[in-house]
């Protein structure tokens, strides 16, 4: 601190507390609403403190499911989300690290061509080419499969850049030493490069897990079979359930369940998360 100004210190904390309230209040209300029954949520103003129905609501959601969401238990949807998030995360990390390795450590024709091809994918987000990409998946018979849900999302320019950037900072002496010891390229990759990349992989893991878990449009298009619904996209069926009024206590319960895994990952691995986020955007 440069100088001591009590009023400014007070203002600083006031601003921060206001910010925390603004960010936390909506989720607080969601939590509260998910512990009440339908009667409490049928007249305004709704309660702002917990009700007694937490156990009933959540066990009904996790195991029983709702007719509005196709009768699939939310537990099943969360399982699908987990599979999708993990496949996307590991897939992206695996194919990005090997392609970055090839681009940095080998010299071969079309090397830069490949690099630019990967780069351009940054400019083609799935939202702008929805229909033709959907057609490709239909033609390949991947509708309603885990493969269709994950494989098209696995290419990653960001992860490739991050690994490339990191590999470029690794001293050449390591490669020379490895070659003197007669290690081949695969051996070098497996025994030296991969262990060195651990922190980067962990940081990327957090970002990509959140990216994968929060996918919405893609699972919405690819799955028509309720058994494959993911939780973030399944909630939409409950909100816009047509004729019947939305069952808010269940919807908020689902929202809370759907945000727990990614929020836990961020909070538990805060340091790595900040590092991964700030570096992957460079």
């Amino acid at each position, binding site marked *: 601190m*440069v100088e001591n*100004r009590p009023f400014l*210190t007070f203002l*600083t*904390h006031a*601003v*921060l507390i206001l*910010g925390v309230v603004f*960010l*936390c209040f*909506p989720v607080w209300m*969601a939590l509260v609403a998910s512990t009440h029954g339908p009667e409490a*949520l*049928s007249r*305004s*103003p*709704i309660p702002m403190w917990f009700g007694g129905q937490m156990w009933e609501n959540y066990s009904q959601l996790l195991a029983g499911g709702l007719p509005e969401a196709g009768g699939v238990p939310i537990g099943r949807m969360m399982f699908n989300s987990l599979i999708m998030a993990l496949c996307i995360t590991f897939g992206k990390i*695996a194919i*990005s690290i*090997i*392609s970055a*390795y090839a*681009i*940095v*450590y*080998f010299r*071969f024709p079309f*090397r830069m061509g*490949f690099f630019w091809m*990967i780069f351009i*994918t*940054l*400019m083609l987000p799935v*939202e*702008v*080419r*929805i*229909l*033709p990409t959907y057609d490709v998946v239909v033609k390949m018979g991947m509708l309603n499969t885990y493969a269709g849900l994950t494989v098209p999302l696995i*290419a990653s320019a960001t992860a490739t850049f991050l690994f490339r950037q990191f590999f470029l900072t690794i001293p*050449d002496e390591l490669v020379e030493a490895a*070659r003197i010891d007669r290690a081949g390229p695969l051996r070098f990759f497996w025994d030296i490069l991969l262990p060195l990349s651990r922190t980067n992989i962990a940081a990327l893991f957090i970002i990509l897990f*959140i990216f994968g*878990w929060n996918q*919405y449009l893609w699972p919405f*298009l690819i799955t028509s079979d309720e058994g494959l619904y993911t939780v*973030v*996209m399944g*909630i*939409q069926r409950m909100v816009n359930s047509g004729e019947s009024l939305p069952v808010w206590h269940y919807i*908020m319960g689902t929202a809370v369940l759907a*945000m727990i895994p*990614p929020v836990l990952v961020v*909070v538990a691995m*805060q340091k790595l*998360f*900040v590092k991964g986020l*700030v570096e992957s*955007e*460079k």
Partner: protein
Amino acid sequence: MQKRVVFRSRLLPYLLVLPQIAITVIFFFWPSYQALESSFFIEDAFGFSREWVGLTNYFELFKDPGYLKSFRTSLIFGISVAFLAMAISLGLAVAANRVVKAATGYRTLLIWPYAVAPALAGVIWYFLMNPSLGIVSYWLSGVGVEWNHYVNGDQALFLVIVAAAWKQVSYNFLFFLAGLQSIPKSMIEAAAIDRAGPVRRFWTIVFPLLTPTTFFLLVVNLVYAFFDTFALIHATTEGGPVDATSILVFRVYNTGFIGQDYGSSAAQSVILMGLVIAMTFVQFRYVERKVQY
């Protein structure tokens, strides 16, 4: 750009890039090419025949008042989200940068919404502002505001702007905080010795030095508002009432999947791709300049 010492192998590097390139070609390049191609055709609803029409689909779009309105909506939406999310997070980052005690605690409480999916952010705000039982709309009626986003288009747009900005604050906060922490303390101290007060110091030293961060975040926030908020809108207002929240990305989806007008949807895709390419280009121009900084 490249290592001095490299491995020699004829086949291995190709095998290593193969998975990434294969997915890129099948799921990125091929569909994008398809979008480009079908934007020059008009197809009947069953896909039996199609006719080359040149740029007609594009001309039709720019004659369509609905599309022009969607452009306007996207612009209002994008700029409001970016401004709101950046202003709030800059204030929070400046405050957090001053705090010594409890800094980690504040940071934890401020960053977690990053992990909340845009769709969920939308659904929760949709609930808070529900005209009959939302707590925020109840408060609003207390101060005399009649809130009903099912009928009032401006209110619906306001609702999605607030929800989208709410989700983006954490991201901006982290980048602003990182930017603030990289400003040398000695500069601030020198200004303080010259009797510049905190407000003056902020506007003449801190804010100008944050320009690169601000500019980077502006592009990121606009891209977020234009593309990533599809889920938020689709899960809540579904573009309504009467297209009031139908931003460009939502319209691509609506024209293609609901309206089954493939030519027009493809033309809209191509326009959006042009927009992303322009924004990415701007962002990378800026990144190059930052390196010289």
